[in-house]
């Protein structure tokens, strides 16, 4: 495959970036998108140019590190797929592909396609946990009966890998899908119910402080989420928040 790549280049967080065009040839349709980026970087290094910086880690769709906005969509045109699992056969020979970083003011660009997603870490730290006494007397989680439906929905919410595709895809740069998944994965389980009120209150407060936009229920996040996190989680978070507000 021969491709033209239009890639966002930005040398650091302070500099002004721009789109730069590259031509690349002999790309196998069986390559993953990241392997294609590796091939491009080899080409750039051989020429003595600065390689394109991009985030990646596990390359098997579970770490949430890869974060490119490919041809107008987070993680590219495929559904339920991270960039590392996107294959070049999804593109046509001779195609021009536009590659940009996830854009949101809460995700500032560090370099090229790498963005700072530590805002998600801070939201997690605000309440995305359960407090367990680890003195040795902790009850085994498997001994606590949990309704199958609740366990399944909690697990579905817990599959969120925190990649930020929801924020990148949302026209408002809202983080509601991520935060609601993290709220739901605990609040549906008996271990998480104890701190449910503080959790939703603190996580939403932190989300707002990070400068994410407001959710307007377009549903773009659900469509683009590589793990298929459902909008039902946002409704659940809204219910829990309203309940907390009314109790206050």
């Amino acid at each position: 495959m021969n491709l033209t790549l239009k890639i966002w280049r930005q040398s650091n967080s302070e500099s002004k970036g721009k789109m730069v065009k590259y031509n690349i040839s002999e790309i196998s349709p069986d390559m993953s998108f990241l392997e294609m980026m590796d091939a491009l970087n080899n080409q750039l290094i051989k020429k003595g140019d600065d390689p394109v910086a991009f985030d990646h880690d596990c390359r098997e769709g579970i770490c949430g590190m890869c974060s490119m906005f490919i041809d107008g969509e987070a993680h590219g045109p495929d559904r339920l797929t991270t960039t590392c699992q996107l294959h070049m056969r999804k593109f046509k020979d001779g195609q021009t592909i536009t590659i940009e970083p996830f854009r949101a003011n809460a995700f500032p660009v560090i370099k090229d396609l790498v963005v700072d997603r530590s805002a998600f870490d801070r939201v997690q730290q605000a309440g995305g946990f359960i407090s367990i006494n680890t003195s040795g007397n902790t009850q085994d989680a498997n001994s606590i009966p949990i309704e199958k439906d609740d366990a399944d929905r909690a697990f579905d919410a817990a599959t969120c890998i925190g990649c930020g595709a929801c924020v990148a895809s949302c026209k408002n740069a809202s983080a509601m899908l991520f935060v609601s998944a993290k709220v739901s994965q605990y609040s549906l389980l008996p271990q998480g119910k104890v701190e449910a009120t503080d959790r939703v209150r603190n996580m939403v407060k932190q989300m707002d402080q990070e400068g994410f936009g407001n959710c307007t229920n377009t549903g773009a996040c659900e469509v683009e989420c590589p793990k298929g996190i459902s909008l039902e989680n946002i409704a659940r978070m809204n219910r829990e928040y309203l309940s907390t507000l009314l109790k206050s």
Partner: protein
Amino acid sequence: MNIFCMILSSIARKVAMAISGLFLVFFLAQHFTINITSVISEETFNFLSHFMGTNPIVQFVLQPVLIFGVVFHFIMGFILEIQNKKARTNNYALYKGSENANWTSRNMIISGLVILSFLVLHFYDFWVPEINYKYVEVLPDNPNRYYEELVHKFHSPIRVGLYSVSFIFLGLHLYHGFNSAFQSVGFNNKFMIGVKKLTIAFSLIIPLGFIFIAIFHHLND
């Protein structure tokens, strides 16, 4: 996080937007129910309009609540739009919004602005003359004037055209807003399929019904 901060949170704003929207949906249904009687029976329309125009509870309790609801919904809509624009000041070179969300959900501000423009015309047409009749000129009560006033307004084909275009945008606004309001207040379960069907029905029947009323009176004038 105190109660004041919680009320100002993004979720509270979203819920407030939803509740004011649902209130306006209820008002639209009531408004349509009264207006559709004008194509069936002149007497019934005059009777209902006279009741709504003279009943003190409607005039001095419900009407101020309605005006507050309309103003609140628009102001909150603008505030949310400005905040959302601030959340992404560097836009994408290529953004395929239509791949993951429909036009109506992405452009509520556009349909909302068209509805706001329509409301200015609508208030100029009906509400301002009504206030003038009752409270400025203090003319004698006439229970039979409403039908004639309605028909007179739809004499102009330009006004009928403007009303029809506005109602199309109202339909687009409802198509996303009605369904979205339920999601915002936390309602998303097995009954959501029914809510989505109700949304489609409401966003078709009400705007098309209003267009029908306008064209009916224009042709029968």
